């Protein structure tokens, strides 16, 4: 059994409520931090832990905290990013729904470290019932004296509120999230200035993912060094993985970083192997934005090393033969999946979610969707494949925020690893008319048709 830090108490009956959470050691990190540690000492522990941002980018949390401008004298804010919208990702929702006080505890301890007296949890609007769970939990925390003025009789005061979005993936980008929290459209801001200097209402602000903040109580209760002792190298601690697709046991799992992909996929403790025992075709290991991996690069890297669930191992080989840990949105595809259709599906998502500020993304995501749609529907031309490559390469790196890259990468990876499948769609339009074309006849069975015609 892997070690559990975030979900160790998840099965205790009533852990959702303040009383049960408190009886099981809840809010201890707030007591320890406020009574025995300075804010900078809390930050130091988090730095020592090596905890990296769990939203997808993997930036060290303690380092991010250390950038917050404490000299300007302006009010500071901690904003929790609970906008979770990356396809394949549903881990933060699990934490907030089943153990909401863990996030609130993390928010208090982290706000103390940052010197923030007014903090927010920004949750996506679709998670409305979770918004209500958090709202009630925050009221319980106020009533018990963990929020409000002079917490535990110290001179630290904190107001915490939950704020809901209204259906926009882009608000998961931290500056768009801040705009949205200010009551505006979610258009990302140009950086610099970074939020640590000028964020919410132009005040110094740190934005952290739910899972990152939820890890802070354990780090403070134990130590940064204890946390860093879990995992491998720069991938310290545990990570929530939300698994979906063609597997036996979809759901949210907490793993120690360093577990092998093969064990995660096939052991009964985790995913239990492929649904209906069909062959594994592809994996998106970290949410829809990260490159898709073909079967032969899933369990082993291109060098033949075991592929591990770490930031480093999943990205081993770069984009040529690797991918990314990302948000931990682990999507598994079997042999009935059409990669072209799936890539079109992702492109439709990014087209829908582009905020429209930058022309490469606004126009490019639409082009990607249209061209993929016509290939998938039997109207593609061979040059469309190169056209797709050209479009994605012109979006990547040319936009204010990473949504452009996120739209480009899945298309690039699909062409890189599954080009023959695109060619098949162009050459045999009559065979792919039915949207379930690979359900009845998986690509492996028709691949030879492509090979024969290749000059």
């Amino acid at each position, binding site marked *: 059994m892997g070690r559990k830090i975030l979900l160790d108490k998840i099965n205790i009956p009533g852990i959702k409520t303040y009383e049960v959470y408190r009886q099981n050691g809840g809010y201890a990190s707030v007591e320890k931090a406020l009574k025995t540690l300075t804010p900078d000492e809390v930050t130091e522990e988090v730095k020592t832990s090596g905890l990296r941002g769990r939203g997808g980018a993997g930036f060290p949390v303690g380092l991010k905290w250390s950038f917050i401008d404490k000299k300007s004298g302006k009010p500071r804010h901690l904003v929790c990013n609970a906008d*979770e*919208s*990356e*396809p*394949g*990702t*549903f881990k933060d*929702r699990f934490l907030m729904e089943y153990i909401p006080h863990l996030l609130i505890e993390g928010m208090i301890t982290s706000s103390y470290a940052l010197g923030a007296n*007014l903090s927010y949890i920004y949750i*996506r*609007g*679709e*998670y*409305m*019932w979770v918004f*209500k769970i958090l709202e009630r939990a925050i009221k319980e925390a106020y009533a018990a004296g963990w929020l409000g003025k002079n917490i535990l009789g110290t001179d630290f005061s904190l107001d915490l*509120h939950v*704020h*809901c*979005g*209204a*259906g*926009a*993936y882009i608000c998961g980008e931290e500056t768009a999230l801040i705009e*949205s*929290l*200010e*009551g*505006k*459209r*979610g258009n990302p801001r140009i950086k610099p200035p970074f939020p640590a200097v000028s964020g919410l*209402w132009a005040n110094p602000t740190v934005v952290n993912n739910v899972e990152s903040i939820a890890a802070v109580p354990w780090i403070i209760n134990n130590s940064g060094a204890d946390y860093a002792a879990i995992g491998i190298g720069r991938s310290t601690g545990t990570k929530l993985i*939300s*698994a*979906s*697709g*063609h597997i036996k046991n*979809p*759901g*949210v799992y907490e793993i120690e970083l360093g577990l092998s992909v093969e064990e995660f996929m096939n052991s009964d403790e985790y995913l239990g192997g492929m649904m209906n025992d069909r062959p594994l075709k592809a994996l*998106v290991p970290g949410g*829809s934005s990260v490159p898709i991996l073909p079967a032969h690069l899933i369990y082993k890297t291109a060098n033949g090393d075991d592929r591990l669930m770490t930031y480093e191992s999943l990205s081993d080989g770069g984009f040529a033969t690797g991918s990314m840990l990302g948000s931990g*949105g682990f*999507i598994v*595809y079997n042999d009935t*999946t059409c990669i072209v*259709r*799936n890539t079109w*599906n*992702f492109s*439709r*998502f990014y087209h*829908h*979610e582009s*905020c429209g500020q930058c022309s490469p993304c606004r126009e490019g995501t639409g082009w990607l969707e249209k061209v993929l749609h016509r290939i998938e529907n039997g109207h593609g031309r061979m040059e469309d494949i190169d056209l797709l490559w050209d479009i994605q390469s012109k979006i990547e790196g040319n936009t204010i925020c990473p949504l452009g890259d996120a739209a480009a990468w899945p298309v690039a990876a699909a062409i890189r690893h599954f080009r023959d499948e695109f060619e098949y769609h162009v050459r045999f339009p009559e065979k792919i008319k039915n*949207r379930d074309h690979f359900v009845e006849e998986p690509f492996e069975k028709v691949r030879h048709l492509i090979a024969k015609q290749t000059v």
Partner: protein
Amino acid sequence: MENTQYKQEINITPELMTRINELIGHYPDDKRKSALLPVLHEVQDAHENWLSYPLMDKVAEILNIQPIEVYEVVSFYTMYNQKPIGKYMFEFCRTSCCAVRGAEDLMDYTCEKLGIKEGETTPDGMFTVVGVECLGACGYAPMMQVGDFYKEHLTKEKVDTIIAECREGKINLHDK
């Protein structure tokens, strides 16, 4: 300006106003605009799930901002509806993880059963079916959102049951 052809009765009840003021209280006094998104959710829920221009103007007045500041937000976010929709809106997630677990077939089935196409509302105003992008329930696919709640691990039988329960008024849309 599609919604000018529809009339909406505006009714900001004292209960709703209390809730709006509670939400406004979550932000500094000079940052009332920040409450816009949560307030729009509450106002929309209390007005048959859509927002007319006069209603948006009312929200602008409450928050002390210009009407355009409300319009531009309402048009940006997918959860705000600018025209009347069915009492029960079935929002099927159709993004990859749900799609590979049968979401498209299930949405087609639901549309067929209700006699409408995706994006349409039944003539009696009871049901709307729409395909939406990832709702963060990938491991519990296929699924749909109805009001404030998710209906997960759906099958044709479960969809049948939900439709019947809607007709009997047994489905709770909001958690107030």
